[in-house]
């Protein structure tokens, strides 16, 4: 996999390539990567689908009244996201719950799968997170105009502020509205990329006998932190989607 750093025969010093784990490569053979090529992206996204099927379909297939472990986790995920949508975006946002659940489950499963050694972290790529963020941005904007018509513009016209300040605030609001997909996507990809790269740097230091114990401790600590970050970033992505959805459904401040 891409995660294995290629030890360079040419140089003798401490060589590490923390970014090599993010390389996209074809699964079969080597050649140019077209949009349809089956790559490690395909493999790890497919594995996230497999994990989803195991958790949400196989785990719940017994429909037990008293749930087992897998069913408990599936129900926990359902209840967690459903409550988040209801609390943050309101009751009328519940029809959009499956979409937000899709995003949350994909991100959280990809993040956790990316923590496996030698794995490829699909959510560490800005192309992946940007597509999701732009999708949320477009969907929320369309929903805002469909539900409220021209009234959606009241999101930018803050009626509670003094009249003199309103034009300036409107400018700020419009800029922040269009910056949303950027921050939304870079936050997730940046977090995932940075954590994995840091682990990789520490791992390279493990080759030096003198500092290897420290390196192992540091990797362990970073891994624990990354486990936390993997969940929190999926949660943040989902909750921000809910916040944007709330703005679209209720643009009045």
């Amino acid at each position, binding site marked *: 996999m891409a995660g294995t750093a290629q030890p360079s025969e040419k140089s003798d010093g401490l060589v590490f390539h923390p970014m090599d784990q993010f390389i996209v490569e074809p699964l079969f053979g080597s050649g140019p990567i077209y949009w349809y090529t089956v790559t490690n992206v395909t493999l790890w996204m497919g594995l996230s689908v497999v994990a989803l099927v195991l958790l949400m379909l196989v785990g719940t297939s017994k429909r037990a009244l008293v749930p087992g472990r897998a069913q408990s986790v599936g129900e926990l995920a359902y209840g967690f996201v459903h409550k988040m949508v209801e609390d943050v975006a309101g009751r009328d946002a519940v029809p959009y719950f499956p979409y937000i659940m899709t995003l949350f489950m994909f991100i959280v499963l990809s993040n956790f799968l990316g923590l496996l050694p030698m794995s490829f972290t699909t959510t560490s790529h800005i192309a992946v997170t940007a*597509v999701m963020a732009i999708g949320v941005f477009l969907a929320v904007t369309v929903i805002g105009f469909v539900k409220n018509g021209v009234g959606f513009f009241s999101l930018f016209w803050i009626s509670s502020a003094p009249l003199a300040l309103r034009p300036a605030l409107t400018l700020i609001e419009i800029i922040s509205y269009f910056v949303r997909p950027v921050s939304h996507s870079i936050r997730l990809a940046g977090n995932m990329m940075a954590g994995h790269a840091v682990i990789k740097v520490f791992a390279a230091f493990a080759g030096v006998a003198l500092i290897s114990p420290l390196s192992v401790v540091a990797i362990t600590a970073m891994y624990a932190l990354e486990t936390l970050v993997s969940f929190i970033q999926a949660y943040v992505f989902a909750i921000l989607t809910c916040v944007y959805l709330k703005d679209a459904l209720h643009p009045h401040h």
Partner: protein
Amino acid sequence: MAASTDQVVSKCIDGYGSAIGMPQLCGDWMANQVFWLVVTLVVIFIILSRIALPRIAEVLADRQSTITSYLATSEELKSKAEEAERSYVQALNDARSEASRLLDASKAEMKKELQSAISKADAEISVKVSESEASIAEIRKNALSSIEKVAKDTAKEIVSALGAKADAKTISTAVSSKMKG
């Protein structure tokens, strides 16, 4: 991966198979990522919205209704148990008062029987006493007359032994008056 030493596979990977710059910014790969992401998201969405989410919602609703019905049943059973306890206490109180009533009744009856037995015994005793008194009086009378006779005889014998002569009438009168006095 099989990057030979001097050949650049793409503009993002150098001859040693390492990334040039940030792989995240490599435009050659983005179309591939976007395509597979869309496929994945559509598959996940279909799985979730068609099967998983309705199933979990159904399971949760079933559980909620089961819990509700169990709670109702337990409430009903509880009220039944309270009812049973109340009737039990009622029966206990009834039995207690019945028992004390019976006790009082039998006590009174026994008292009455005792009373009648006592009075009957008293009557019998008094009859016996009067009979005894009569017989004692009889015996006493008999004894007195016997004593008088013996005294008269003795007195006559003594008088005759002394050589005096006395008629029986005088002696008996004298004895009778002496005995009375």
